[in-house]
C-alpha cells in the first residue's frame, strides 16, 4: 500500500502584498519616531506644545509686529522688535570707530581672507600650491591694510571696534598660536627635562586661569613689565595674551595628534637615518596636524567666542558697541534686539566652522566602519 505523501504545491508565485499600513509610509514613520511608547508620546506632545507657544510669538516679535525704520526708538510704535537702529548704527557694529571713508580697507582684507584660506581648507583645490604662498603673506598684507602706513592713511588701533575687532583679534590669535602651539607640544614631549618642564608649566598655567585675568594682565601688568619708554598698544597687548592663551590649548590639541601617530612612524624615520627635525617636519607633524585639524578648528571657535571678553578692559568690540548704543537715550532699552543680532552673527560664523570640522572629521576618518 502506498502512502500518499502530504504536500501542497503552489504552482505560481503569490502576488506581493504591501507591508501593514501601520509600519510603513507616513503612519509607520510617525508611530516609530514620535509615538513609540507612552514616554515618547508625552515628550512629543510637550515638544509640539512648546513650539506652538514659541514660534508664532517669536515670528510676530521679530518680523510681523516689528518696526524696521525710524530715527530713534520713539519711531517704533508697534508691539514687536525695534530694528530701526539698524540703518544708522550698522557701520558701527561692523567697523567700530574705523574712519568711514577707509572702511573699504577692512572689506578688502576680509575678502582676501577667502583666497588665503581656500588652499588650507580644501587641499584638493587646483593651484593650491601657488596660493599657499599667498596664505603665508596674508597676515602681513592684512595688517598693512588695517593699520596703514606707506601710502595708506594710518588708522590707530583704538579706532578698531565692532565685529572687525573680534575678527582681527581672533584671526591674529589663531595665526600666531598655531606655530607656538606646535613648538610647545613638541617641547612637552621632548627628551630634554628642562624644556619639557617649562613647556608643561606654560601650558598648565595658561590653561588653568580664566582668560579674563590674562586680559587684566594685558591691560595693567604688561605696561609695568616693560620700560616706560617702550609702550605697546592695548590691542597688541590683548593679541599677545590671547595668543599665549590659545597656544596653550593648541599645544594640547596637537599633542593629542602627536600621540596618535603610531610608534612605527618614528622608528621608520630613525631607521632611514633622519634626525629629530627631519623626522618631525617630514614624517610626524604632517600626520599629526592632519589628525588635529578638527581640534584646531574647535579651538578657533572657542577663541573667536572669547574675543567678546575684551569688553571687561574697555575695548569696543561688538558687544560693547551694542551696550553703549542701548545706553543712549535714543535707543534706550533695546537690549534684546541688539543681543539677538549679535548672537545671530556669532552663531552663523561658529556654526559653519563647526560643520566644517565635522565634515573634515568624516573625511579624515579612514577606519572601516
Amino acid at each position: 500500500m502506498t502512502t500518499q505523501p502530504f504536500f501542497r504545491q503552489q504552482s505560481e508565485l503569490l502576488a506581493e502584498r504591501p507591508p501593514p499600513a501601520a509600519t510603513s509610509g507616513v503612519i509607520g514613520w510617525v508611530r516609530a519616531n514620535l509615538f513609540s511608547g507612552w514616554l515618547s508620546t508625552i515628550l512629543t506632545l510637550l515638544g509640539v506644545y512648546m513650539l506652538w507657544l514659541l514660534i508664532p510669538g517669536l515670528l510676530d516679535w521679530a518680523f510681523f509686529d516689528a518696526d524696521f525704520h525710524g530715527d530713534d526708538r520713539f519711531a517704533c510704535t508697534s508691539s514687536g522688535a525695534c530694528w530701526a537702529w539698524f540703518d544708522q548704527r550698522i557701520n558701527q557694529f561692523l567697523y567700530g570707530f574705523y574712519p568711514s571713508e577707509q572702511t573699504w580697507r577692512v572689506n578688502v582684507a576680509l575678502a582676501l581672507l577667502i583666497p588665503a584660506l581656500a588652499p588650507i581648507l580644501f587641499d584638493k583645490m587646483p593651484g593650491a600650491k601657488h596660493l599657499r604662498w599667498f596664505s603665508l603673506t596674508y597676515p602681513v598684507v592684512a595688517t598693512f591694510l588695517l593699520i596703514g602706513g606707506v601710502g595708506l592713511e594710518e588708522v590707530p588701533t583704538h579706532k578698531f571696534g565692532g565685529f572687525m575687532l573680534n575678527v582681527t583679534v581672533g584671526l591674529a590669535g589663531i595665526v600666531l598660536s598655531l606655530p607656538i602651539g606646535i613648538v610647545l607640544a613638541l617641547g612637552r614631549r621632548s627628551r630634554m627635562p628642562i624644556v619639557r618642564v617649562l613647556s608643561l608649566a606654560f601650558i598648565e598655567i595658561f590653561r588653568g586661569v580664566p582668560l579674563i585675568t590674562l586680559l587684566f594682565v594685558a591691560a595693567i601688568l604688561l605696561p609695568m613689565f616693560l620700560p616706560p619708554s617702550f609702550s605697546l598698544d592695548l590691542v597688541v597687548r590683548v593679541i599677545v595674551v590671547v595668543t599665549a592663551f590659545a597656544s596653550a590649548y593648541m599645544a594640547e590639541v596637537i599633542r593629542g595628534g602627536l600621540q596618535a601617530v603610531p610608534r612605527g612612524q618614528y622608528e621608520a624615520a630613525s631607521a632611514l637615518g633622519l634626525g629629530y627635525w627631519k623626522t618631525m617636519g617630514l614624517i610626524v607633524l604632517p600626520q599629526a596636524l592632519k589628525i588635529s585639524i578638527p581640534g584646531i578648528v574647535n579651538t578657533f571657535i572657542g577663541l573667536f567666542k572669547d574675543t567678546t571678553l575684551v569688553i571687561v578692559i574697555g575695548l569696543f568690540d561688538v558687544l560693547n558697541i551694542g551696550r553703549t548704543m542701548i545706553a543712549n537715550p535714543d535707543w534706550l532699552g533695546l537690549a534684546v534686539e541688539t543681543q539677538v543680532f549679535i548672537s545671530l552673527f556669532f552663531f552663523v560664523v561658529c556654526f559653519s566652522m563647526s560643520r566644517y570640522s565635522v565634515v573634515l572629521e568624516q573625511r579624515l576618518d579612514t577606519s572601516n566602519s
Partner: protein
Amino acid sequence: MAVSGVPAGFELRRMWTDERARSALFQVLVVLGLALLVAFFVSNTMANLQARGLEPGFGFFGDTAFFDINQKLIDYSSQSTFGRALVVGLLNTLLVSALGIISATVIGFTAGVLRLSNNWLVGRLITVYVEFTRNVPVLLQIIFWWSVLTGLPKVADSLSIGGALFLNNRGVRMPAPILENGFGWVVIFFALGVVATFFVGRWAHRRHMATGLPFPMLWVGLGLLILPALIVFIVSGQPLDWDMPERTRFNYRGGFNVTPELVALWWALSTYTGSFISEIVRAGILSVSKGQTEAAHALGLRPRLTMRKIIIPQALRVIIPPLTSQYLNLTKNSSLAIAIGYQDFVSIGNTVLNQSGQAIEVVGIWMVVYLSLSLATSAFMNWYNSHIALVDR
C-alpha cells in the same frame, strides 16, 4: 694622518655631533634666556613701582576695604579688610560654580540621552538647543539672561508663584528656612544614615561579588538615608519653620532674596556648559559598541539593566576626562560675572585692585587661586578616573 696631533677643533666638533652635549647646551641656553627675560621684567617692574610710589607685598590685605558687597556668605561690612573681601568673593565664585556644575550635569545628561532617543521631534529640539548655545559666546548669554531678569516687573507688580515665590527686577524672593532647637538631631541622624548607607553598600557589593546574590541597594539606601532623619524630625516636633516673604510698602520683608545676577549667571553657565556636556555624553554612549548591548540582551538582561550594568559603566570611561575639563571651564567662565556685577572673586579682586593699586599682588592671587582650583579638580577627577578605568589584564 698623524695619530698624535689631534686638530684643535676636533673635540668641539665631536661635542656638536654628540646629542647629549648638544641638548645640554641647548637647555643651558634656554634657562639663560628665560632668566634674562625675567630679570628684565623684574627690574622694569621695580623701576615702575618706585616711580608710582607703590610698595610691593601683601600687607594691604589687612587694610580696611571701605566698599560694600551685596551678596555675602560670611559676615562682611565695609569696615572689614581687603583680605576678607577677597574671601567673600572666592566663596561667591565657589557658590555659583558648585550650583552650575550640578545643574549643568543634570541638563547635559538629560539632553545627551534625549538626543539619542528614537523620538524624532525631541532629537531635533535638543539639537537646536545644543547648536545654538554652543555657538554663541557665553558672555553674550550671561548678559542676555541678566537683561531679561532685570527687565521683569518692578517690586510693586511682582509675579507671584503660589504666594511664596516672588519674581521682580530685584531678583527672586523665596521663603527662608528657620532652624529651631532640635534640628541638629535631624542633621546628626541624616549623617548617621549616610555612614550606614556607605557601609551597607560596601557589604552588599562584596556579597554580590562573592556569591552573586543581588541586594536591593537603591531602596535600602534611600530608606536608610530618609527614614531615621524623618522619624527624628517628627518625634522632636518638626523643628523647622519658614520665614515667608511679606509685602511692605516698597519692598519685601522676610524670606531671602536671590539676586538676578546670581540667577542669570547660574542659568547661563548651566545651559552653556550643559550643551557641551550633552555632546560628551552622547559621544560616550555611542562609543560603546553595539555588540555589548546585543551580548547583554543575549544573556537575558532587560533593557534598563543593560543600560545600568553594561553601557553606562563603559560610557563613563569615555565621558569622565572631557567632563572634568568642562567643569573647569565652567568655574573659569564664572569669572565673567564681572560683566553683570555679580561679585565673584575676579570682580571683587578688581575693586580691591582699583582701591589699593596693588595690581601685581591681586592678579597673582587670582592666578594662584584659579590654578589651585584647576589642579585640585583635575587631581580628584584623575583619581576617580583611575578608579573606574578598565583594568588591563
